[in-house]
């Protein structure tokens, strides 16, 4: 049995299939960062740190000896706990199609938002620098008038080309910015979404957990997400009423080419 302890849970095979399928369905749309940055792994639960290929000197090395120490980026473990009523799982086994998995859905959203936020804005406490904060380009103010977004996004693309970063580019948008774009047609009725897509030449992504927007080079080894254990559902405990489970993963993230992104602030 793995550390997820799934075999200890009072859940049938059909129940696990239901939970896994639901989690996959809810995570897919919200995992914005994975649609834009490079994904390495999964390396497994035992994988603890990302090799940075660098060393730092050791101050108090023994006399007559030079010593350096490898620098690594430790993986962070994230868990989003949730409960499922045992009566709902029993109903699912009977063939119910309307099983209440609201807490699982919420946990999936929390974890996706946390992953996106770590990638786009960083997480200082675990040593992760985000794409927006790492960018050396001056941030571009999005402003409230989203009819001006094409101008701002084109400026960001120009900035990337100006430092030799060629496409394909992608545009990640905060939920608010994404909604504004969807709701807006420019003069002549041309949808703003289509215009922005033409400018970046790549995907436009709804990105919960992101503030504002980011234009970045998609792929190419510039932004590196390393997965230890990929998103999984594990067992915590249970009583007569409910089973407590958690969605979990371990990962690190690092920016290899800070100039390959431009932040657009709200």
């Amino acid at each position, binding site marked *: 049995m793995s550390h997820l302890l799934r075999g200890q849970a009072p859940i049938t095979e059909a129940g696990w299939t239901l939970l896994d399928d639901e989690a996959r369905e809810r995570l897919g749309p919200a995992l914005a960062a994975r*649609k834009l940055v490079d*994904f390495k792994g*999964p390396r497994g639960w035992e994988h603890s740190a990302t090799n940075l290929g660098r060393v730092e000197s050791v101050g108090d090395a023994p006399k007559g000896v030079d010593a350096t120490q490898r620098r690594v980026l430790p993986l962070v473990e994230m868990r989003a706990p949730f409960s499922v009523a045992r009566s709902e799982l029993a109903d699912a086994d009977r063939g119910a199609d309307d099983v209440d998995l609201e807490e699982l859905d919420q946990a999936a959203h929390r974890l996706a938002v946390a992953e996106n936020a770590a990638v786009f804005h960083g997480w200082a406490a675990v040593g992760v620098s985000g794409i927006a904060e790492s960018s050396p380009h001056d941030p571009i103010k999005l402003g409230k008038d989203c009819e001006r977004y094409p101008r701002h996004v084109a400026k960001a693309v120009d900035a990337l080309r100006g430092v030799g970063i060629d496409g394909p580019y992608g545009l990640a948008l905060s939920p608010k910015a994404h909604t504004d774009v969807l709701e807006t047609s420019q003069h002549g009725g041309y949808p703003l979404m289509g215009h922005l897509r033409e400018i970046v030449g790549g995907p436009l992504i709804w990105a919960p957990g992101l503030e504002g927007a980011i234009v970045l080079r998609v792929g190419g080894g510039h932004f590196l997400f390393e997965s230890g254990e990929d998103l999984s559902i594990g067992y915590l405990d249970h009583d007569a009423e409910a089973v407590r489970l958690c969605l979990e993963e371990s990962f690190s993230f690092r920016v290899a080419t800070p100039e390959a992104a431009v932040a657009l602030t709200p």
Partner: protein
Amino acid sequence: MGFDQYHEPPAELPDRTRTFARLCTSLTEEAEAIGWYEQRMAVEQDRDAVAIMRDAQGEEFKHFCMDLEFLLRRTPLWREIAQGILFTEGDIVEHGEESEEEAVEGEAAKGAPLAGSESLGIGSLQEVAL
């Protein structure tokens, strides 16, 4: 009693793997039956008997295809390799080598789960976005 389809202790195998093994055994049996009918028809002189056997072989073709489709749906990597080989024209071995290489490399790039992993198998979503 035959439990020959299990190579490992059945009690230690998840339901999904036991089902997979049963269908693999069924696939093998259908292929054997197809071969048997082919041999019987080759030596049978009675035309009526041959017609019945041909009809029966058609049933085995159907069973084989249904088993295979089930297994491919449950095994994305197998399905991807099969897509590069089945219903093509030209050199089968060449198609097989190319298909395997592309599928295996593609799996690695997409962050396919490690063997035995219980993860959701989400991995990279870059391909979805592009």
